[in-house]
C-alpha cells in the first residue's frame, strides 16, 4: 500500500465567470520513502493539487475524487481532522522563504508552535528539538538563531529554516512547492543537497512541485508532468528524461539548458522550445489541452480527451501520437 494514493482528483475554482477546473481527474501515488516530482508550467494545477492534499484550497475552491493517505480517506475529512493532519503528518514548504516565514515572530516561535500544538510537549522540550532541527538543516549558531527574526537571515538560510519548520513534527509526507525557485542558483544547490541528505537520513516521502525539470533530475524517483490541470506523462526520472514520449515533455526537456546531452539521439531537435502560452484557468481548450501548441496534433486531439497509454509498468502517457515515429497510433516500447 502506497503512502498516498490520489484517485480522480478534480479541483474546481469559482471565478467571476463560473466554475473553472484547475485540476482535472488526476490520479497518482507516492510510495513510502519515495520522492515524486510534479512538473508543469504555472497554471498547470500542480500547486492546487498540493493544497488540496492539505485541505487548504482557497475558499472559492472545491475538490472531488479520493485522496487516501496512510490508509485513510482524507478528502472527506472535517476541518478538525485536517488540522490534525497538517504540519503533523503532511508538511509543506512554500516557494518563497522571504514571504512564507512570519516577519514578526521569532524563529523559535515558528519552529515550535506546531510542535507544541500537535505533540503537547513542554516549552523546553520543544526548544530542544528546535535546536536539533536547526543543526540538521545546518544553520550556524542555532542558539542565537532561535531568538532571531527571519529578516536577519538570507534567502537560503530562511528556506533551511522553513524546511526545519516542516520537519518539526516528523511528518510522513513533505510537500515542497518550488523549494528553490526563489533562490540564487548557488544557494539552490545547497538546498537540493540538504533535501538529498534528509532523504538518506530519514524515512521521508517527498512530493516536489516545480516548473524546473532540472531541479528534479537528481532528486526524484519518478516524475509526473502536468499540463492544464491534467497529467500528460509519468515515468521514472531516468526514463522520462531520456525517453520522453509526450510532445509536451520533450518540449520541456528541450527547453532545459544543456539538454543536448540528454536528448540528442532523437529527432526532437525541432522541439527547441514550446510555442505559445499555457492556457488560462477556465479557458482550457477542449480535447487534449496541449493540442493548440502541439506540432504533432491530429484531428482527434482537438475534441477527444486522450486515453491513458501504459508504455511500461512505470511509464504512462496521455497522447495518441508518437512524436518519434511521427505516426499516429500506439507504438509500444522502443
Amino acid at each position: 500500500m502506497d503512502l498516498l494514493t490520489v484517485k480522480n482528483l478534480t479541483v474546481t475554482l469559482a471565478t467571476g465567470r463560473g466554475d473553472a477546473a484547475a485540476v482535472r481527474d488526476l490520479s497518482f501515488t507516492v510510495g513510502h520513502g519515495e520522492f515524486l516530482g510534479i512538473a508543469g508550467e504555472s497554471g498547470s494545477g500542480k500547486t492546487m493539487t498540493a493544497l488540496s492534499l492539505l485541505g487548504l484550497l482557497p475558499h472559492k475552491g472545491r475538490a472531488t475524487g479520493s485522496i487516501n493517505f496512510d490508509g485513510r480517506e482524507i478528502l472527506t475529512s472535517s476541518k478538525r481532522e485536517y488540522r490534525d493532519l497538517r504540519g503533523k503528518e503532511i508538511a509543506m514548504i512554500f516557494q518563497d522563504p522571504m514571504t512564507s516565514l512570519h516577519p514578526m515572530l521569532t524563529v523559535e516561535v515558528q519552529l515550535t508552535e506546531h510542535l507544541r500544538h500537535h505533540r503537547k510537549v513542554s516549552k523546553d522540550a520543544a526548544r530542544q528539538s528546535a535546536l536539533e532541527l536547526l543543526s540538521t538543516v545546518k544553520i550556524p549558531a542555532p542558539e542565537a538563531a532561535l531568538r532571531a527574526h527571519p529578516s536577519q537571515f538570507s534567502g537560503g538560510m530562511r528556506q533551511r529554516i522553513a524546511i526545519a519548520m516542516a520537519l518539526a513534527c516528523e511528518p510522513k509526507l513533505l510537500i515542497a512547492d518550488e523549494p528553490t525557485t526563489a533562490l540564487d542558483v548557488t544557494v539552490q544547490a545547497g538546498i537540493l543537497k540538504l533535501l538529498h541528505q534528509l532523504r538518506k537520513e530519514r524515512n521521508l516521502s517527498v512530493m516536489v512541485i516545480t516548473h524546473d525539470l532540472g531541479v528534479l533530475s537528481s532528486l526524484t524517483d519518478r516524475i509526473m508532468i502536468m499540463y492544464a490541470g491534467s497529467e500528460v506523462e509519468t515515468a521514472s526520472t531516468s526514463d522520462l528524461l531520456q525517453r520522453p514520449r509526450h510532445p509536451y515533455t520533450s518540449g520541456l526537456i528541450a527547453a532545459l539548458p544543456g539538454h543536448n546531452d540528454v536528448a540528442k539521439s532523437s529527432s526532437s531537435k525541432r522541439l527547441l522550445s514550446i510555442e505559445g502560452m499555457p492556457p488560462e484557468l477556465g479557458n482550457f481548450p477542449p480535447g487534449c489541452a496541449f493540442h493548440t501548441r502541439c506540432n504533432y496534433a491530429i484531428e482527434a486531439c482537438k475534441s477527444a480527451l486522450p486515453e491513458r497509454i501504459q508504455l511500461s509498468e512505470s511509464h504512462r502517457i496521455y497522447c495518441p501520437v508518437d512524436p518519434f515515429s511521427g505516426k499516429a497510433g500506439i507504438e509500444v516500447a522502443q
Partner: protein
Amino acid sequence: MRTKPISEEKSQRKRFLSGNGFVPFILRRLLTSILLVFGVTFISFSITQLVPGDPVAANLGQSAYSNPEIVAAFKKQFGLDRPVPVQYVKYVAKLMHGDLGVSLSSKRPVLEDLKEYFPATLEIALVAVFLALVVGLLLGIISAVTRDRLPDQIIRVFSLTGVSMPAFWTALTAFYLFFFVLGWAPGTGRLAPGADPPPTVTGLYTVDSLIAGDFSTFRQAVSYLLLPAIVLAIYAIGVLTRFTRASMLEILGNDYVRAARAKGLSEFTVIRRHVLRPALLSIITVAGVAFSSLLAGSVLVENVFSWPGLGQYAYRAAVGLDLPGIMGVSMVVATVYITMNLIVDILYRVIDPQMRDVS
C-alpha cells in the same frame, strides 16, 4: 481619515541628528513636531489674515463699533493696530514663553480657556476612542474572517452607514430618543444644573470625582458623558471597522498565513498570532489619527449636547473671528495629532522587529 506618516524625511535630517538609535530617532521626531506646530500657527494666522473679516466688528456691539475711540482702544488692547507681520512675530515670541495671547471673545488668556475646555472634550474623546477601538476591532475581525459571507456583508453596510451619518443629526436623534422619549439620558451639559463639579485635578470630572472619593458625582458624570461619547464614537467605529477588515484581509492573503495554516494550528491561533499582530501595526496608526479627528469632530456633537468643550470654544472663537482663540484650538488639536503620530511611530518600533533589526 487617512494615515499620514510625517516621518518621510528621515534621510534628510540624518546630517545633523545622525544615528539610528532610539534616542536620536525620538529627538528627530520631536524637532519635526515642533516645526509642525509652528507651521500650524503660521498657516492659521495667514489664512485668517488673508480672508476679509473684521474681528473688531465681530466682538463689539453695534453702538460700540460706531464709536471710534472704543474701536481704537479695542485694537490697541489686542495688538490689532500693529502691522500683520509684527502681530505674528509678537505672537510667536509670546508663544515661546507659553503665552497663547488673550481671547478676543472671552477676554481671558487663551491658555486659561483651553485648560477649562480641553478636559471636557478629552473626556468624551477618550471614552469614544476606547469604544471605537473595542467595537471597531471586533467587528473588523469578524468581518474579515467571514469575508463575503452574511456577517461580513451586514457589518460592511453598518460600518459604511456609521461613516455616512451626519454627527450633528445623530446627536440630535439620539438625544431626542434617549432623553425625550425613553428618559435614559440625563440631559445636556457635564453635570446636572447646579451640581458642583469635583475639585479640579485633571479636569476630567470622572477622574476628579474618583480622586475626591465622591461616587455620586462620578456616577452622574458618567451618565452625562455616555451619550455624547457614543455619538462621537460612531464615526470612529465605522472607520476602524473598515480599516481593520482591510488590513486583516491584506495580511490573510500573505504566504506566511498559508504557511501557518499548513502547520495545522487552530484558526484562532492563526488569526491571533499570525494575522492580528501585523494588522495591529496599521490599525494603531489609524486609531491615533482617529483620536485627533474625534477632537475636531466634537465641534458638531458638543453643539447639540451643550457640552462645554473645545468644540464649543472653537465655534465661538471662529464666529467671533477670535484669532488667538482659533490658533489656540488649532494648536491643541495639532499637538494631539502630532503626539499621536509620535506614539504610533514609537509603538511601531516596539512591535515590529523588522524595523528594529534593520535600523
